[in-house]
């Protein structure tokens, strides 16, 4: 399999990262190296093997549904690049080209 510059462009869009043309070139070359090394994984016969997604075998951890203390909105907003009347302020969401 060969990762082309177009694939990188597509994945970068999924990951919401703007890459420069130079970065797209660099990453397609480097990820080709990395993935061809990783293709070794296919040597393993994993028929019937349960995938290990997480180490602890415990089931869900639940807590009682009672109100507790939480951050004040002032503190929660303290790091916001932009805020307005107690909310995070973001640019226009609906774009014509989306």
């Amino acid at each position, binding site marked *: 399999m060969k990762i082309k510059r177009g694939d990188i462009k597509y994945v970068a869009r999924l990951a919401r*990262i*703007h890459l420069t043309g130079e970065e797209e070139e660099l990453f397609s070359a480097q*990820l080709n*190296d990395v993935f061809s090394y*990783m293709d070794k*994984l296919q040597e393993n016969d994993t028929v019937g093997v349960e995938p290990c997604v997480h*180490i602890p075998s415990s089931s869900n951890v639940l807590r009682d549904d009672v109100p507790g203390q939480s*951050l004040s909105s002032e503190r929660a907003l303290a790091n916001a690049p932009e805020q307005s009347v107690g909310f995070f302020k*973001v640019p226009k969401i609906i774009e014509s080209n989306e």
Partner: protein
Amino acid sequence: MNNICGLSAYQLKELIGKNNIKAVDIASSIVRRHDEVDGRISGFVNFDKDAVIDRALCLDNLADMHDRGLALFKVPVVLKDNICVNGELTTCASGILQGFRPPYDATVAARLKSAGALLLGKSNMDEFAFGSSCETSYYGPTKNPYDLQRIPGGSSGGSAALVASDQTMLALGSDTGGSIRQPAALCGVVGLKPTYGRVSRYGLIAFGSSLDQPGPITKDVRDCAILLNVIAGHDKLDSTSADVPVPDYVQSLSGGVKGMRIGLPKEYFTQGLDSGIKVKIDAAISVYKSLGAIFKQISLPHTEYAVSVYYIIGCSEASSNLARFDGMQYGYRYQSPDGRCGLIEMCMRTRGKALGLEAKRRIILGTYSLSSGYYDAYYLKACKVRALIKSDFDKAFNECDMILTPTTPTPAFKIGEKIKDPLSMYLSDIFTIPSNLAGIPAISLPCGYSENGLPIGMQLMAGHFEEEKLLRAAYSYEQNASWNKVKPVL
């Protein structure tokens, strides 16, 4: 007072007990040491002298009230820059988190504060812990105290270099694929990655959620046990933290290794292992034999796949965890010159501009592995091979009590040597990655120096929640080898 900085945490505690030294005097010594050496090492990313002195004065005011019994009273500690401390700059050494001050403490930070520790500041790291050399830091690399031309290891390179250069007694790092043990090995100090779930991850900014563990980086094994005692234990705020009783790890140090069965996995002693490292590991094995340990050849047959499994799973988890850095809630936000850029464009430009090259590379790698059409071939396949790697360890621990290996295939490499070749950088973690995949504890401790004076580390791994065994074996060796007394010339 001048040599306070050279002490271990245990020795400092003894001295405080005897002479009732003031925290402010300890802080002043640390500040002097920092001024003397950190210009050359760059281990700190945030060290505010006045704040350190103020915190020390607060501890001195507390002293009359309840100084008895606090495990780390007045003992200096450094935290890796991915551990949240309420109100203190926490940036993961990334451009995207410049100026971020968390509104809460990580559980490990809260525990250190309750134990009376003197928090010094934040240590350098690879950006978001993505790296093995500290070179991907937004602030530039930390230097190895044993050779300023070389990397300190990573990603917790700042923490390891600060401990090695006597700028702190204790440090916390985090370990996703070796990020505590590899820098500890390359800087000649002790580093422990606890069992997954042993130490709370609450407030540790996530990289690979199924792999990350915070842990101690210290001058010797006893200090490692002292620090683990403070940070280990169940935490309701981390649903993956284990509700397993915490023993007294300092108590576990004595007892020796007589009759202990130690496995030597043949896959770790093949091509690629530096001959100088091989010699030192063989010498360590001889020490253990003389102490009554029994050695056994074992096999961990899926070792060669560990790096691939790790980079697929780690990057997949990272691509999801780092989605939160989008310019909306904290950190850097891209401003378009005309002020008319919409939400998605803002998000893409923010991430494109403020994330470093390695962070972007890993997010792309992870997103690719998870994307439709590749999920089965990469992510799912990696999770299945991870299960095989884990079962290799389960089988091995039927035959032996612990496993001994080198921590790294080579000593510290030169700054710039591997940064342009991601694959060769990734392969430098080959011996440390498997224990993260299996969730088992592992410790690295110094076992000698190369011909040109670079530290060499040995790694011990044991079964889940068997940190006591690791600490006991490490302590036995250290008592006989005394590498912890060697210091870099600065």
